[in-house]
């Protein structure tokens, strides 16, 4: 937070710094019941043209982190710590007027439920125009043309007519497309998609994901996709961060996480994916227990009360200390677990993999 925020957005090009870098991000909410540690030390990097998936249960701190990148906790009671570097500028210490210039322009966000995320009283087109004109001083007609172009690009039929419709006149999929169009109005370099397909049926979901990948190729934008759907991550992302109780518990390239996961929580997530090719007498596995309270995190490893593999730990106590996020192998695969890595590999191959 000591870094000067006067660095303008364009200076970091070519300095070798990552496009987006989170360093030990903390988001805490003081409440009457105690301090809610929604995000407790989140770090990752992301380059332009790449996609990062953040996975985790409800309440694991996914959405809260993304709102922190947008600076949307400013003015609320939340305490944000750590650093967020975007293209050479530090966002955590940035003032509201400064970060407002980035919102929508450099960083745009696609929200989960497009019906409640769009204003019910204003025409879809006008909401797109507003997103453009707040950062670009152009006549209405220019902004309108761009809005219709983008509505067309995201696959809305007869966009020049639908421009005048209200959000409630759109179907769920169309609303999400319009939401994406709104996010793209100013060609953002970073797109944060907070569960963009959770409210949609699978057919529409696939179309929306394809659309996002196409647009990413075209605009060379970086995408952070937040989801609890591992299928979405597998399709979209190059890198994955698995969050649990406000912490990263496993992170790495998507192939590592899907084919060589080492954290029992990740095993549980992978095991809970329904599969069509499995016999009909298989029960869908779930991770037992419930997500932890973010006010009183369990002592030691936050996943410890729900973990079925604690007997394999040697030399540490699961309830004693929080395991460190340690790199294993060569491919920037990081895991937070007390079980020794060789033992984890063995467990995965012998017990977990056959049942996936």
């Amino acid at each position, binding site marked *: 937070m000591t870094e000067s925020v006067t660095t303008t957005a364009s200076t970091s090009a070519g300095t070798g710094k990552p496009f987006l870098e989170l360093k030990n991000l903390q988001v805490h909410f003081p409440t009457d019941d105690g301090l809610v540690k929604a995000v407790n030390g989140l770090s990752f990097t992301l380059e332009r043209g790449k996609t990062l998936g953040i996975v985790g249960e409800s309440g694991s701190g996914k959405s809260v982190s993304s*709102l922190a990148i*947008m600076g*949307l906790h400013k003015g609320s009671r939340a305490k944000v710590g750590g650093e967020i570097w975007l293209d050479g500028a530090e966002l955590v210490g940035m003032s*509201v007027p400064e970060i*407002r*210039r*980035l*919102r*929508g*322009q450099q960083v*745009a*966000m696609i*929200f989960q*439920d497009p019906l*409640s*995320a*769009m*204003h*019910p*009283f204003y025409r879809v087109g006008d909401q797109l125009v*507003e*997103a453009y004109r*707040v*950062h670009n001083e152009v006549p209405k007609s220019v902004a309108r043309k761009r809005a219709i172009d983008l509505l067309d690009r995201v696959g809305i039929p007869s966009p020049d007519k639908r421009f005048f419709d*209200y959000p*409630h006149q759109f179907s769920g999929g169309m609303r999400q497309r319009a939401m994406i169009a*709104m996010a793209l109005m100013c060609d953002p370099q970073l797109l944060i998609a907070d569960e963009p397909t959770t409210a949609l049926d699978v057919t529409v979901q696939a179309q929306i994901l394809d659309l996002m990948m196409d647009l990413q190729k075209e605009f060379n934008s970086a995408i952070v996709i937040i989801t609890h759907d591992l299928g979405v991550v597998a399709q979209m992302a190059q890198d994955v961060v698995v969050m649990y109780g406000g912490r990263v518990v496993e992170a790495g390239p998507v192939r590592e996480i899907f084919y060589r996961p080492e954290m029992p929580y990740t095993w549980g997530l992978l095991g809970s994916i329904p599969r069509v090719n499995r016999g009909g007498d298989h029960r869908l596995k779930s991770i037992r227990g419930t997500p932890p309270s973010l006010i009183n995190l369990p002592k030691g490893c936050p996943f410890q009360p729900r973990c079925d593999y604690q007997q394999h730990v040697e030399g540490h106590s699961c309830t004693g200390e929080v395991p460190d996020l340690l790199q294993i192998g060569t491919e920037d695969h990081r895991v937070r677990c007390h079980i020794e890595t060789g033992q984890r590999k063995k467990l995965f191959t012998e017990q977990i993999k056959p049942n996936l």
Partner: protein
Amino acid sequence: MGRYLIRRLLQTVVILWVISAITFFLFWITPANPALLICGKNCNTETIATVNATFGFDDPLIVQYGTYMKGLVSPTGRDIGSEGSERNCAWPCFGESYQNGIPVWDSISDAFPATFWLAIGAATIWLFFGVMLGLLAALRKGKALDKLSVGLALFGVSFPTIVFGYLLLFLFIVKLKWIPFPDTANAALFEVGPVKWLQFYILPWITLALVFAALYTRLTRANMIDTMNEDYIRTARAKGLGEGTVIFKHGLRSALTPIVTIFGLDLGGLLGGAVITEQIFSITGLGKFAIDSVLGNDLPAIMGVVLFAAIFIVLANVVVDVLYAVIDPRVRLS
């Protein structure tokens, strides 16, 4: 839209008819005897019989009701008075007062402007202060300003109008003498000039506005707090909009929608007379007229003032429903 309006207006007519019937027959259930009232101090059986014949009190109730309704429905009104001294009571004929023989419609027309200006002025005050205080409280939720405005609102709701009005009157007219004692009971703007007009109305406006301002403060605050937690407010901020645009264009617009509804109904109700305020400040508006009519067992006057007030309330309902559809595109009239 057109068909909807026609249907709603027809419904209005039916509602008004039901109200007129209920009022009329309820009056005759009460033990009042209007003939005694009309014939005055020197009553004997003979004069009472004459009165009964003149006013048709001898006729069956249903016939009397029919005669009464004829005056409201027929474009030529109806004839009033005993044989030989008949006179026409032009449409809309609410009859003549039992107390003083003045056509009720004339009294209502005379009383309405005072009530109108009282209601409009008070509504402006309470809408302005209510929405402003509510908005500030919502934006400073939990802070000192919020607590102050919530406290004021509680005070305003709990303070009886009749006490508050007399306190204002006593303080500003009698004690401090900031406002001269009103020398008229019905100040018309164009007759007395704006200064006297304001002096006449300012205290009644404040008296009438207090309770409403308090209610609207609470309502605006609650609606605004709800709205500012909506996802679309977060979207508006995520677009990079300034906080002013977020609050007024995206927040207040939604938060005020239910207030428009309630405002229409409140104003419509008050146009039929603000009984307590008019009584305190001796304003000869519809509210005072209503009290005098009821106390005097004056059926034509009661009928007149009830129907007149009902028209405003029923029409306000229609206007509010149409307005709602204009404000909120999700609402369709059908």
